[in-house]
């Protein structure tokens, strides 16, 4: 390989990002779908000849670009020896590396002389790819055939010649063929532009230099990640998280992860996670690694480039069968929930790996809710939001309230009131931050958001998909939980969740005057709330983030005449500290996997003392990581003890005989 000097390296990098930006701008201008030119739901990327992601622009979503590396690998396997200049491959199949069917990738190999040097990729969310409902995504899907057209790897353009048969076959199966055709044309044009720009870059700096730079950029990210991993003590760090239910079945979906550090390498093993979900909360093999990458990048090596060089020292193991490794014919439209389950499990495991860098858990679910019906002129409408929640507290700062979090792109997740009242026959009653919904902590989690929408019309319907309703986002390093997500309807002054399984409803019929409420979760806290500066708690009360009662009960801070009452605070904190319920952890050999739930055994006296019932979840503290939530089975266990299995000991990094606190996962007041 030619030697590259450090300046040329930076110039070529700037040049590569410029290529991606120009491809982006071209596609944006030429596209036909509102999701693209308004919603910016698309991404472009430059991959090297081995199919590794080298360059993207900051606007490009990792969720779109990371999985492309699976597609390029597929191209090299399936079309070995048959890849030529002028080819364009298309792909959306989740089972072989796609996201969900709506995201269609166009990938063009770029040759420099005779070398397959790069791939240019344009991946865009198509408004409709067929299937059983307009827009193709549905919470009710149980098979992928209901979610639209599945495109295995197809060479749509063969050395410059368009495959009309494939194109027309596809367009015959979507609801907006005109727009889809326009988008496809734009994707083809954009990939051609990308090829020309790569050629120009090679002409300017020389083919070998550009190739060498590409390799160096990947090596640089790899070296940074190896350095970050080698700073972590060798060992295994575990966590698990349960999606509360799936596709009409109340049985939870478990994401179990082990992070195994060995020298400068990391193995991320999902063994023990649930098999296929009955509903759509499954993903193909690319999505869990995508979220692993995003979480590792965020907690281990935030700076530097975003390329897949950072994944070289990381191995991701997915079991089979597994909802993260979907196979035909499981539905994959609930990709958001499935992918967020990975992030929650990852954040929990990373918290015990790096307690000082731990961050309180996030709202998790996609929180999509839809109100549909016909407006006063008889035109159909769909009002759609996916409200963000609070972000987690971290060592040094409180979380943000009602704000997109660090694993998500920066889009507005709620509609302006003045837009939605102009466009839809609905009336927003209020939109406020939820008092006391931030997870208490030395550093508090951000607050969730509550919105109430009155629907005055006949025959409107409500659908939503959410999670973390009964088990809220966890706090870390002794911090408390954020308030959980909650969606439902207020009718005649009473709130209810009309869903057959909590948090998942499709096409629920509203009555005129019903008020739909959405409450997004608060972020988890960081550190013991009794250690929070009393002045910071006072400020929270003055700002209305925490109620006076919350200040007293969660933080032990007593306020009098707008100031901290020092003595009363000291006493209250001492009392709260001593009233925590400490237990001894003991080992159990009894079954701990019951109806998809991971359980512990607790004596009847403890159940009473905690104010819970068998079947509820409890939280076992982990002051150097994230607490473990287990479902409670009543057993013949000493009142001072809780019996847990080996796996639970590993998650808690505890030994039999260790003492830990137990409590109900905290629920927010409003």
């Amino acid at each position, binding site marked *: 390989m030619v030697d590259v000097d450090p300046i040329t390296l930076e110039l070529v990098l700037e040049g590569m990002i410029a290529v991606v930006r120009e491809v982006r701008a071209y596609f944006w201008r030429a596209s036909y779908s509102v999701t693209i030119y308004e919603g910016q739901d698309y991404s472009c990327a430059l991959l090297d000849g081995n199919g590794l992601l080298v360059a993207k622009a900051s606007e490009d979503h990792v969720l779109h670009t990371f999985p492309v590396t699976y597609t390029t690998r597929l191209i090299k396997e399936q079309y070995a020896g048959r890849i030529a200049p002028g080819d364009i491959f298309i792909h959306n199949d989740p089972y072989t590396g796609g996201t969900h069917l709506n995201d269609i990738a166009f990938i063009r190999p770029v040759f420099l002389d005779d070398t397959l040097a790069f791939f240019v990729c344009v991946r865009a969310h198509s408004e409709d790819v067929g299937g059983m409902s307009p827009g193709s995504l549905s919470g009710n899907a149980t098979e992928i055939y209901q979610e639209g057209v599945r495109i295995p790897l197809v060479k749509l353009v063969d050395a410059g010649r368009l495959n009309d048969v494939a194109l027309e076959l596809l367009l015959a199966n979507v609801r907006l063929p005109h727009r889809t055709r326009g988008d496809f044309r734009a994707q083809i044009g954009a990939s051609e532009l990308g090829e020309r720009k790569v050629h120009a870059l090679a002409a300017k700096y020389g083919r070998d230099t550009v190739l060498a730079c590409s390799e160096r950029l990947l090596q640089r990210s790899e070296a940074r990640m190896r350095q970050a991993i080698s700073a972590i003590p060798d060992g295994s760090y575990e966590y698990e998280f349960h999606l509360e239910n799936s596709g009409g079945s109340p049985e939870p979906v478990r994401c179990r992860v082990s992070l195994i550090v060995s020298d400068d390498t990391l193995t991320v093993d999902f063994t023990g996670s649930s098999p296929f979900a009955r509903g759509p909360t499954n993903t193909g093999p690319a999505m869990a690694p995508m979220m692993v990458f995003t979480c590792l990048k965020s907690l281990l090596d935030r700076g530097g480039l975003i390329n897949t060089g950072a994944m070289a020292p990381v191995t991701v193991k997915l079991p089979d069968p597994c909802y993260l490794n979907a196979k035909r014919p499981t539905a994959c439209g609930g990709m958001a929930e499935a992918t967020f389950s990975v992030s929650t499990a990852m954040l929990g495991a990373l918290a015990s790996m790096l307690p000082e860098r731990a961050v309180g858990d996030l709202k998790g679910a996609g929180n999509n809710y839809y109100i549909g019906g016909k407006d006063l002129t008889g035109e159909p409408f769909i009002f759609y939001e996916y409200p*963000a929640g609070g972000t987690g507290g971290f060592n040094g700062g409180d979380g943000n309230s009602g*704000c997109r979090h660090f694993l998500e792109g920066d889009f507005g997740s709620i509609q302006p009131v003045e*837009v939605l009242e102009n466009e839809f026959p609905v009336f927003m009653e209020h939109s406020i931050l939820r008092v006391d919904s931030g997870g208490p902590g030395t550093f508090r989690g951000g607050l969730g958001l509550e919105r109430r929408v009155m629907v005055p019309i006949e025959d409107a319907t409500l659908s939503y998909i959410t999670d973390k309703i009964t088990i809220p986002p966890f706090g870390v390093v002794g911090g408390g939980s954020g308030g959980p997500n909650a969606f439902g309807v207020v009718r005649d002054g009473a709130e209810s969740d009309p869903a057959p399984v909590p948090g998942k409803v499709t096409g629920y019929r509203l009555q005129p005057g019903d008020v739909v409420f959405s409450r997004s979760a608060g972020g988890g806290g960081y550190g013991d709330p009794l250690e929070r500066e009393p002045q910071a708690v006072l400020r929270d009360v003055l700002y209305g983030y925490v109620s006076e009662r919350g200040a007293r009960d969660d933080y032990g801070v007593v306020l009098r005449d707008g100031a901290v009452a020092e003595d009363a605070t000291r006493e209250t904190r001492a009392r709260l500290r001593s009233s925590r319920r400490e237990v001894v952890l003991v080992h159990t050999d009894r079954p701990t996997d019951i109806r998809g739930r991971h359980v512990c055994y607790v004596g009847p006296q403890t159940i009473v003392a905690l104010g819970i019932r068998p079947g509820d979840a409890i939280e076992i503290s982990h002051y150097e990581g994230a607490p473990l939530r287990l479902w409670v089975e009543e057993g013949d266990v000493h009142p001072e003890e809780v019996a847990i299995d080996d796996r639970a000991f590993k998650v808690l990094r505890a030994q039999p005989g260790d003492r830990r606190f137990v409590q109900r996962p905290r629920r927010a007041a409003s």
Partner: protein
Amino acid sequence: MLLAGIDVGGTFTDLVLFEAETGRIAVTKVPTTANQADGVLHALSRLEVLPGQLALMAHGTTVATNTIVQRRGAKVALLATKGFRDVLEVGQTRRRVPNTMFDPTFRRPEPLAPRPLCLEVTERMRHSGAVHAAVEPGEIEELAAKLRAAQVESVAICFLHAYANDAHERQVGDVLARCLPQVFITRSAEVVPEHREYERCSTTVLNAYVSPVLARYLERLSDTLVAEDFSGPLYTMSSSGGTMTVEQASKLGVKTILSGPVGGVQATIFQASAARIPNVISYDMGGTSTDVALIHELTPALSTDNLVESYPVRTPQVDINSVGAGGGSIAWLDEANALNVGPLSAGAMPGPACYDRGGAEPTVTDANLLLGRLSADRPLAGRVQLRPQLAEAALTRLAHRMGDIPVFHLADGIVKLAVARMATATRAISVQRGYDPRDFTLVAFGGAGPMHACALASELNIPRVLVPPSPGNFSALGLLTSDVKHDYVRTRLALQRDLAPGEIERLFREIEERARAELASEGFTGQRVRLQRSLDLRYHGQAWEVSLPVAAPVPEGADLRASFDARYASIYGHHGELHEEVQLVRLRLSAYGVIDKPTLSRIAPNGTPAPLDERQVYFDGAWHTCPVYDREALGFGARFAGPGIVDEFGATTVLPPGWEALVDELGNLLLGPG
């Protein structure tokens, strides 16, 4: 008659003086003072002019921007519709700070009105403008008492749907004005009567935050000048490319956020118009940053989708793209030993290493000095004596950490990286908006612009560079060439088919009546009034609008549809299908009070330039002997080939090998690849 344009920047105050009778222009530069009025007087005295001699003074100011950046604005309370006080804090749930994905420690900037001062008022309008819940009068007086007790200096009122009916905002505003006469009160329907409550609220709160500070400053400046017998109008540059009276600017401070940078764009338009070059990109490179803007057919692109310090500003602003690359930008290595240039700048203090003011980090200026592009003999701006050995020492330290790469190679690389970042910023406003840079001329100014202009032009295939006379003070010229401007907007959300015949025309006439009255009160009538209409339109179902300039009378029916289709296609490459209905969102009017513009004087011909000197300059890995020309001595018709250097007060133009220079009759240097 003498006209003065004064650009008060953070470091320097630039003065341009124009004598109408002779067309003579004089420039000077003095340090900015704590009381900025003192610096203004100092600059005038430098050119031996008394304020009483001036017929007009227009100035660009950074007061509003600095107030926001340094968080030194007024203590602001927000009055919001009951149930919606968190509109400001939640901000549509967006982060609005670049590169914050992957960052769990990101903290969103605090709103400028703190939550305890975000108070709710019982009232509610519907989107139709109908009253849903009336204001309860007693409640406002209670609120006023609360605001007084909290010693609030400024109040922003922003109620839902006030763009459709601002009666409640008026009602509450009137009560507060009566109860709190010392407090500045601003209403969202006055500042930006557009729908989308968060953006409107943010703009109104920013206005409440900066206006009292700007008003105090303008009052002080005006008093100082009047005390020195100045009796002409004092104008302030606005962000949208026109000027404002003191009275206007004091009420609408949020419209001066780009007051400084817009002067350069206005000067560019003026110079380009005189040189008969309609399509230009203005390129202003200073010590800490570079501003670029695209000007098509002598019209700058305007944007209403603006951010200042992550806070949205919906009032129209010239679309200026700013990047943290300037002469003072520091070259540094990150954790992975990758070389970066900027955005951190050494500024004026300590400044680049070669300034000998204690700066030890190598900057773009140090690199240029080492490469021979800056003169080691000629003091910078006539004052700062540069020390090449200090620049070399700073660069050598960095080169050592990079494995002892040759120091000149590093210097060349630093300049190239800075150029690459500026090219990225320029692509964003040209290629990425559908314009081909090959159709444009790059107008380079600012202390460092002419030095990097040819390199930047090469990077983007821009075929021609124009360096105006006095590029170091060029921005201030724009202040003298700008008309007084008011921007009006009226929101009217309706499908085209639901509009009554003549309705748009009638609404425009209402707005125009108000505009004429306001301009008349400022002394502009008849030929001195110029009105420019536009409509914000979209296809029904889209989230964002496209602005369509329209003539009077406004086209209707199929004509309007056809104009919109064409405009849409020019931006997005295709237009909506026939069944997609067109929706009106709002009407806009720009109203100008036309002032007398300077006339540029012609320079004497002198086609045979004689180099003053020569020096060794590094280009692409080799040293070249370069003739050094004195800008003052270059006459009309002068022509020479690169490599070459043109030195003048406040700027240096670098002409690389293979380029040619030509001087036009206005004294512009026109540079192009030979």
